[in-house]
C-alpha cells in the first residue's frame, strides 16, 4: 500500500471520527445483562452484568468458548439483540439504556460490523456492497465512488470491484466485508468470529491485514473469537468470558502469564495440571502444595488460598524444563519417561510420564532431541507454577 493512497483515503474514511472528543471511550458497556429462557423454563444468563470500556482506537477481543455470551454481547452492542438491562454508550451517545427505556435500532448506531458468514449481498457487485452503507446514509454520489474505491484499495481488492461475491474466494469475501464495515462508521467496528470460515493460511494473512488497516485508519474494534492465538495476536486487551461474565480483562501477555483463575489458564494456552492440598503459605506470594508427586512450590493465583485448601497447580508446557541430571527433591523436579515426541517446527514437544502428574506435556527447542523411552528429569520452576482453587472452573 502506498502512502499516497492511504493519505487520500484516510480523511474521508475516518471523517466521522474526528467528532470524538479526546478521552471519550469508543464504547462504554455498563452492567449489561441478558437472559435466555430455555425450553424447560430455566433462565440462562447469556450476558451477566458485564461492564466494559473500550478507548478510541483500541482493539479488544472477547475470547471464550461457544456459549460463553461473547456473541450475544456483541449483538447487544450492534442493536441486533436487546439486553434486559444496562447501558450501552457508543462514542458518547447512549444507544441502550434500560433506565431510560432507550433502545435505538441497529441502523441508527453508525457501526461497522463483520459477520461470521460475511453476509455479503449476493445480488450486488463488490462495489455495490461497499457503497450501500454510504448510499443509505445519503452521501453524495460523487463522493461515494471515491470513498468506495479508496477503501477497496486499502483492502487490496480494487480489481474485484465489478465482481459478484459468489465469484470470490473466502479470503477475498472477507476483505469485501472488511471494506464494507470500514467505509462508513464512527470509529467502532464489530467483528463476529470473522475468520472462522477461512483456512489457516488465509486466516493468518487476514489477521495481519486487519492489524495493518487498524494501524492506518485507527478504528476501535470489538472482536469476538474462540481462537486464543487470534486473540493474542490481534488484541490490545483480551476479555476472557466465562458463562456470561468477564473472568479476566487484561493485556494478552498478562492473560497468558498470569491468568486470573484456572478457567482462564486452561482456556488460554496448553496446561499441565496436578491437584493437591496447601501445606504452607509464604510471605512472598508463594506456597507449597502437597501432591502425589511430592511437595510442589508455586505462585498463588488471584483469589487467594488458605492452608488445607484443595487446589490445583497449573504449568504451561513451555515452562517445563527437560533435563538429564537426577531430580532433586523439593525443587519441583521429577523423574519421568518419554512417552512420545512431536516435531512442531519451531519447537519440539514431548509427553513425559511423571508419577503423580500423569502425562506431562513439555516443549523444548528443536535443537535438542529426546527419544521415546528416555529417562528424563522434568522441572517446573516455581515462578511458573500457578496455584488456583479448583472450584474456579
Amino acid at each position, binding site marked *: 500500500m502506498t502512502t499516497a493512497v492511504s493519505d487520500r483515503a484516510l480523511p474521508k474514511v475516518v471523517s466521522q471520527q474526528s467528532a470524538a472528543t479526546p478521552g471519550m471511550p469508543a464504547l462504554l458497556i455498563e452492567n449489561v445483562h*441478558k*437472559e435466555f429462557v430455555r425450553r424447560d423454563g430455566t433462565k440462562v444468563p447469556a450476558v451477566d452484568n458485564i461492564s466494559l470500556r473500550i478507548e478510541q482506537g483500541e482493539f479488544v477481543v472477547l475470547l471464550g468458548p461457544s456459549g460463553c455470551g461473547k456473541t450475544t454481547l456483541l449483538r447487544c452492542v450492534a442493536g*441486533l439483540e436487546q439486553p434486559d438491562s444496562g447501558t450501552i454508550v457508543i462514542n458518547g451517545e447512549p444507544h441502550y439504556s434500560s433506565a431510560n427505556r432507550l433502545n435505538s*435500532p441497529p*441502523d441508527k448506531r453508525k457501526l461497522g460490523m463483520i*459477520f461470521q458468514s460475511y453476509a455479503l449481498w449476493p*445480488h450486488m457487485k463488490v462495489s455495490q456492497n461497499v457503497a*450501500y452503507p454510504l448510499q443509505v446514509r445519503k452521501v453524495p454520489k460523487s463522493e461515494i465512488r471515491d470513498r468506495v474505491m479508496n477503501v477497496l484499495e486499502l483492502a487490496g481488492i480494487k480489481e474485484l470491484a465489478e465482481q459478484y461475491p459468489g465469484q470470490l474466494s473466502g479470503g477475498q469475501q472477507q476483505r469485501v466485508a472488511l471494506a464494507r464495515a470500514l467505509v*462508513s462508521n464512527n470509529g467502532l467496528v464489530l467483528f463476529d468470529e470473522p475468520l472462522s470460515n477461512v483456512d489457516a493460511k488465509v486466516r493468518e494473512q487476514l489477521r495481519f491485514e486487519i492489524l495493518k488497516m487498524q494501524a492506518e485508519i485507527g478504528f476501535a474494534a470489538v472482536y469476538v473469537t474462540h481462537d486464543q492465538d487470534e486473540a493474542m495476536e490481534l488484541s490490545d486487551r483480551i476479555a476472557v468470558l466465562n458463562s456470561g461474565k468477564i473472568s479476566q480483562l487484561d493485556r494478552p501477555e498478562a492473560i497468558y502469564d498470569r491468568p486470573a483463575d484456572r478457567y482462564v489458564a486452561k482456556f488460554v494456552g496448553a496446561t499441565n495440571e496436578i491437584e493437591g492440598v496447601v501445606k504452607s503459605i509464604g510471605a512472598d506470594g508463594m506456597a507449597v502444595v502437597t501432591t502425589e508427586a511430592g511437595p510442589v512450590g508455586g505462585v498463588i493465583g488471584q483469589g487467594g488460598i488458605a492452608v488445607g485448601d484443595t487446589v490445583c497447580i497449573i504449568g504451561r508446557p513451555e515452562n517445563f524444563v527437560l533435563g538429564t541430571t537426577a531430580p532433586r527433591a523439593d525443587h519441583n523436579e521429577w523423574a519421568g519417561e518419554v512417552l512420545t515426541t512431536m516435531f512442531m517446527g519451531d519447537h519440539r514437544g514431548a509427553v513425559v510420564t511423571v508419577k503423580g502428574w500423569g502425562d506431562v506435556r513439555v516443549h523444548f527447542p528443536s535443537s535438542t532431541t529426546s527419544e521415546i523411552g528416555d529417562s528424563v528429569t522434568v522441572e517446573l520452576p516455581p515462578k511458573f507454577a500457578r496455584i488456583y482453587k479448583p472450584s474456579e472452573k
Partner: protein
Amino acid sequence: MSATDVKTENGAEPDTAQLPDVISSEVASTPLSSSWSRAVERSRRGGWFSVLTVLLGLLFAALVIYPLVRVLLQIFFVNGKFDFSIAQEVLAYPDLGQVLLNTVILVASSMVLALFFGALFAWLMERTDARIGRLAALMPMLPMLMPPIAGAIGWVFLLAPQSGFINAIIRAVLDFFGLHLTTGPLNIYSWAGLIALYTAYQIPFAFLMITTGLRNSDSSMEEASRISGASLGKTLRRITIPVLRPSLGAAALYMVWFGFSFYSVPVVLGTQMNVKVLPVEIVKLLTFTFPANTQVAVGLSIFLVIAIGTAWYFQGRILRNNRHSSIGGKGQRNSVTALGKWRRPAQALLVLYFSLTFVLPLLAQALVALNGYWTTTIKWASLDITRLWTGITANSEALTAFGTSSLLGVVGATIGITLAAIFALYLREHRSRLSRALDGIIKLPAALSAIVVGLGFILAFAGPPFNLGNTIAILLLCYLVLFLPQATIAADAAAAQVDRQLSEASWVSGAGNARTFARINIPLMLPGLVAGWGLLFVWMTGELNASVMLAGTQTPVVGYYILQTFQYGGFATLASLAFGLTLLNIVVLTIAHFIEKRTTARSS
C-alpha cells in the same frame, strides 16, 4: 432466541425492580391488550415499515376472521336471537343422509386409491431406476396445469357414453370384430367415472407428500433391514411405511380437505347422474336456488368443517405418535433399486397416468374446439385452427370471463405474494404472541374449505354496509384470503433461503426495515417469489369453489363461465375455454419457471 420471550420471563425477576415500566408491564400473564400495545411499541421502534406491516397484518386478520364470525352468527342466531332451529332445518334437508354418504364414499375410496398410486409413483420415481426426471417434476403440478373443471370437461369429451372419443374408438374396434354397440361401452357418468376422476386429482398431492417423505428418509435404513434378513415386502411393512407415516398422514389429511370441498368434478358428472354431494348441494342452495337458502347452506357447511376438523385431529395424533421426526441422510443421494424387466412397464404406467390426466383431456378439448362442435365423426379436413380461440373471442361473455380471470390472477398474485413476503419476514424476525396469532389467522383459511370461506364472504361483504356483491373486489379479497396460506408457504421457503445476517448487515449499515426489504430481501427472495406468483396466478384463474358463489353476470370468471356453458350447452366455446385456460396456465408457469431459474443463477 426471542427477545420477547426473554423480556417477558424477566418480568418475574425480583432483581429487575429498578427497571420499572418496561418490564413490570410484561409479566407473563398480562392481558392481550398489553401484549398488543407492546408489539405496537416495538414496531414503532422498527420504523414506519414495521407499523405498516402490523397494520396490514391486522387488516388481513380482520378479513379472515370477520366472514367466519358471520358464518357462526348465521348458524346460531336468527333475527338477533339465539336460535338453534337451523339444526332442524338442516337435518330435514331432503336426502341429507344420501348426500353425506355419497360424499364419504367418494372421498374415502378415492383417498385409498390415490394413496396407493401416489405412493407407488413416488417410490418408482424416488427409489427405482424407472424414474422419469421431467415427469417427476411435472406430476405435482398437473392439477395446476389443467384445473379440474377443465379436466372434467375433457373427460366428458372422452368418455361420454354416446359421443365420447374413446368410446367411439372402442366401438369402431369392436365393430371390426363384429360386435355392434350404439353406446358405451364406457361411461364417465358412473360411480366408476366419478371415483376415477376424484382419484386422478388426488394422486398428485399424495405423490408430492410421499416423495418429500422419501427424500427426507435415508434409504440405508431399508438397506439395513434387507441386510438384517428381511424380505422386500417385510421391509416395506416394517420400515418404509412406518417411516413414511407422517407423510401418508399429511397426504390423507389433505385429501379429506380437498375431497370434501371438491366441486368441479361432482358438479359436472354428479348432476347428470343425480348423485348429490355436499359441496354441490351447498352451492346449489346459495346460487342456483331462488331465493337463496343461505341458512341451510351455512348449516350444511358444518359437515364440511366437522370432516376437516376430524382429519386435522387424526393428523395431529399421527404427528405426536411419531417421535422419529429427524431422520438422517440429509443431502445424500438415496440409492436406487434396479427394477430389471419391470422397469419399462413401470415407466409405461407413469406415462399412462400422465396421458390420462393431462394429454388426452387436452387433446379432446383441442379436437372439439377445432371441430367447432362435439361429434365423434370428425371431418379432419375441415378442422380450423382459428376455432381454437374464436370459441373465446367470438363470444363476448367468454372473452369478458377470460379477461376478468386473467386480471384477477395478475393483480391477486402480485398483491398476494407481496403480502406473503412482508408477513414471512415479519414473522421470522418477530416471535411475539401477536405475530404468532397473526401467523395462525393467516393460515386459518387453509384449514377450512373454500366453500365455507366463500359463504362467509357473501354473508360479510356482499350486502350492506360493504355492498361488494357482484364486484371484482369481493372476488379479489376472497382469493387473497383463500390463497395467502399457500403464498406464505412459498414466501417462507424463499425467506429461508436468505440468511438472517444479510438483513442484519443492512441494518448495521444504517438501512431501516423498508430499505432492507426493498434492496436486500426482495431481490434475494425473488426466485422463490416468482415461483410463488406463478402458482398463485394459476390457482386464482382456475378457482371455482368460491367463485361459483361470488361471481355473477357482471363479474364472470373463467371457472364459473365454463360451468355455466356446460350446463347450457355450447361445447365449442366450452372446449375453447378449457383449452385456453390450460394453455394460459402452462405459459405462465413456464415463464415463471424460467424467470426463477435465471434469477437463481444470477444471485448465487
